[in-house]
């Protein structure tokens, strides 16, 4: 029964697309209010009011350690904060680090132990005190099987950063230290991220409601407190009257879940919501012509292709290089994405603290690609594999297929819905699978380690067997001199890049759209935003 309906759904979507174009076309001619007229004239921030945000998907659990999806963090970061924050008023990046629940932090000489001085006088929303014991329970929840509220769901998510944690220690009521088995200079920036890290939730809340129940009663120290959540409809937050930091302007935040792109757009145009994410590039003109603001950015994320190393074809570096030589990424950005993308040539994307704008891997050169394939023993047409992708990337992989055909590589395409894609690409790939495509990224230099261990290694890359890469990454991870850290990560990225381990593709231009009276919003160089600076003009 469901299957047939989904088929219908797909067909209907095509119709909807056509009508959406109509909708957009009509929108441009109508709609009066000028874009340049009233907009930024009133510049004194005004307190009060409710901001309604239209989210494009249902957030996952509002739980500090079970985070998934940026859309989840755009909600939960208002409730739950970390020890360290990033300055989200900077559209360029890399973002400055700011004190969060910790006022300062220092690292030991061997770079293995971080000691945080905690903010005093802070209370969780449920009234319990924030102090070193509370931090300790957060650490135990994700690392100590002896703890009654040890959370098995969180542990694997945090393993990439907290796997090397030897112990967390309460030094005194407002001092807490983390000791790792390896140097970890990048730790503070990791603490300021959304996923796989340690925002501080109220232990009293999970002790009362249980680990699974926490998400229904989320309690942190943030500028907004949780009011209610109706799955499939909305999440409501209200201003925390006793917030420790600068008072936010808005009284209330409402996050409505509106998965349908056209409906979300209509809700903004109709004035029912004030801010939407995942704006489609083709809607930008409609929005701007009607006086809506459309901030753009790249958010330190990018599309990249990874080889399926379980397919022995890709053991040969020449094959991997040939494939990179065969793809014209500038053209991908210009033609397929109509300029709504920038080509990327390194695994540290723009916005990352170790991004090197000059880095280049293997330039587009079809002749070179062919001769490399020949050297590797493949005549034109002999190399065959399957590209596996999420249906959302259908156009991209079709484009790639035609590019590869030009250099004599035959690529079949399999596109799957999201869950099946993840299961196949990360779990059990088919024997002829060759490439898969993902989008992720981060502002921290250690991102390289993350993508290697959680994505590329999952796809069969033998990190231990590639000693040069392994050593370079280890060296960067082992850095004890803060001044050398970024350089070492750049060096590690160079090694990875030279071995053609994966194919960076493009970073997509992302759009939010704001109502004409929304002020103070910045598209920060990351994948979430700060609503405490946002206010509503009359």
């Amino acid at each position, binding site marked *: *029964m*469901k*299957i047939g*309906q*989904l088929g219908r*759904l797909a067909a*209907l*979507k095509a*119709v*909807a697309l*056509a*009508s*959406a174009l109509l*909708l957009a076309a*009509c*929108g441009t001619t*109508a709609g009066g209010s000028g874009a340049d007229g009233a907009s930024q004239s009133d510049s004194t921030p005004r307190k009060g009011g*409710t901001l*309604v945000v239209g989210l494009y998907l*249902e957030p996952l*659990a509002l739980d500090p350690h079970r985070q998934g999806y940026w859309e989840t963090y755009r909600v939960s970061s208002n409730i739950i904060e970390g020890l360290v924050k990033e300055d989200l008023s900077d559209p360029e990046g890399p973002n400055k680090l700011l004190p969060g629940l910790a006022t300062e932090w220092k690292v030991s000489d061997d770079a293995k132990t971080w000691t945080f001085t905690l903010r005093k006088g802070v209370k969780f929303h449920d009234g319990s005190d924030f102090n070193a014991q509370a931090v300790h329970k957060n650490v135990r929840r994700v690392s100590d099987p002896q703890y009654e509220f040890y959370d098995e769901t969180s542990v*694997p*998510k945090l*393993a*990439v950063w907290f796997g090397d944690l030897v112990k967390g220690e309460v030094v005194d009521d407002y001092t807490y230290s983390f000791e790792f088995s390896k140097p970890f200079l990048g730790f503070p920036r990791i603490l300021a991220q959304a996923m*796989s890290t340690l925002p501080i939730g109220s232990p009293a809340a999970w002790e009362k409601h249980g680990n*699974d129940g926490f998400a229904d009663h989320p309690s942190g120290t943030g500028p907004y407190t949780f009011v209610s959540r*109706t*799955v*499939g*409809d*909305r999440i409501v937050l209200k201003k925390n009257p006793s917030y420790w930091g600068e008072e936010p302007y808005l009284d209330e935040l*409402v996050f*409505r*879940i*509106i*998965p*349908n792109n*056209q*409906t*979300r757009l*209509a*809700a903004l*145009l*109709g004035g*029912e919501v004030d801010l939407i994410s995942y704006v489609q590039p083709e809607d930008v003109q409609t929005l701007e012509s009607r006086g809506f603001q459309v901030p753009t950015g790249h958010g330190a994320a990018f599309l990249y292709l990874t080889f399926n190393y379980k397919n022995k074809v890709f053991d040969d570096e020449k094959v991997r290089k040939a494939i990179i030589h065969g793809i014209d990424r500038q053209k991908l950005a210009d033609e397929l994405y109509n300029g709504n993308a920038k080509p990327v040539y390194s695994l540290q994307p723009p916005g990352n603290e170790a991004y090197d704008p000059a880095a280049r891997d293997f330039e587009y050169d079809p002749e070179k690609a062919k001769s490399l394939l020949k050297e590797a023993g493949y005549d034109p047409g002999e190399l065959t594999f399957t590209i596996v992708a999420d249906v959302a990337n259908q156009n991209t992989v079709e484009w790639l297929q035609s590019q590869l055909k030009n250099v004599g590589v035959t690529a079949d395409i399999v596109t*799957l*819905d*999201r*869950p*099946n894609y*993840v*299961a196949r690409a*990360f*779990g*059990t790939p088919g024997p002829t699978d060759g490439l898969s495509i993902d989008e992720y990224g981060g502002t921290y230099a250690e991102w390289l380690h993350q993508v290697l261990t*959680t994505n590329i290694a*999952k796809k069969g890359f033998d990190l231990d067997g590639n000693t040069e890469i392994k050593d370079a990454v280890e060296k960067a991870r082992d850095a004890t001199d803060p001044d050398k850290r970024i350089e070492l990560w750049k060096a590690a990225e160079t090694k990875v890049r030279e071995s053609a381990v994966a194919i960076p593709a493009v970073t997509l231009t992302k759009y939010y759209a704001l109502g004409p009276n929304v002020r103070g919003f910045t598209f920060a160089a990351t994948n979430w935003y700060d609503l405490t600076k946002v206010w509503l003009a009359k």
Partner: protein
Amino acid sequence: MGTLKHILWRLLNIVPVLFVVSVLTFLVGRLTPGDPIEAQFARDHTPEQIEAIREAYGLNLPVWEQYAKWVSDLFTAGGGQSIVQNQPVFDILGPNFVNTLILTAAGVVICAVFGILVGLIAGTNHRRFLDRFAMLFVQVGSNLSVYWFGLILIWIFSLQLQWLPTSGMESRNGGGLGDVLAHLVLPGFSAALISMLVLARFTRLGIVQNLQADYVRTFRSQGLPRWKLIGKHIGRNILPPVVNIIGLEIGTLITGVIFVESVFNWPGIGTQLVNAVNGKDYTLIQGGVVLVALCYLVVNLLTDITVDALNPRLRR
């Protein structure tokens, strides 16, 4: 006594139908490719951990045991745990299901009122302009996509005329019956569209046929006013088929509402089920389908009872 026995018998009949539905939804879920646990956890869990989770959900058991466990969960454990949301299925679907029923009810009312009205106008003006015009409207309307129709309604009535809200169930300042009703108009119409037109056709046909019947000619020759003829006699005669059609169309409405919910962002189970399908959340899909099937059966039963009650020959 006879009717009561009849109703009981029909109630009993629901059980085997539900059994078949539950087996089918269960099997369809299992037969589609892909593993929900791997889909959820392949990114950051090792194969051993994934196996452990699979065991925790009982997905390593033989299929018939899984089925038996699920059926017992339907009665005792709120439909089982949702794989993605980790909560009992009926806890998740419950509040949304009420919203779906509200939208369906609005659809039924709109369908009945306008369907009969259009059919009546067309039927009593048989082969005249109004009839042709109404039937053109019916023809075109029947071929519209609900999805597209919904977007067009939003564009006209919400964005251009700004009479009605675009989506959701309540305005930003919330609340009030009037507010909910305003939010119901567009999705209600979109949901009702196809059924309304089907009903209009049947009503028209009924009236046209009856107008040619012998008893009508007799009444006419006796000088009975036209309104009385249509209202009292023809109306009575076409009521049972009309009720039947409405009953059948409620079923269509419940399933159609799923698309309408997506366009108008109505917080009902349709949105939930689409999410569940995208996330391969077996238990949630199964629970939702069984719930919808149950509704369908109950509505059918109620229709039959109503039709029987309307038929004097079946009354004692």
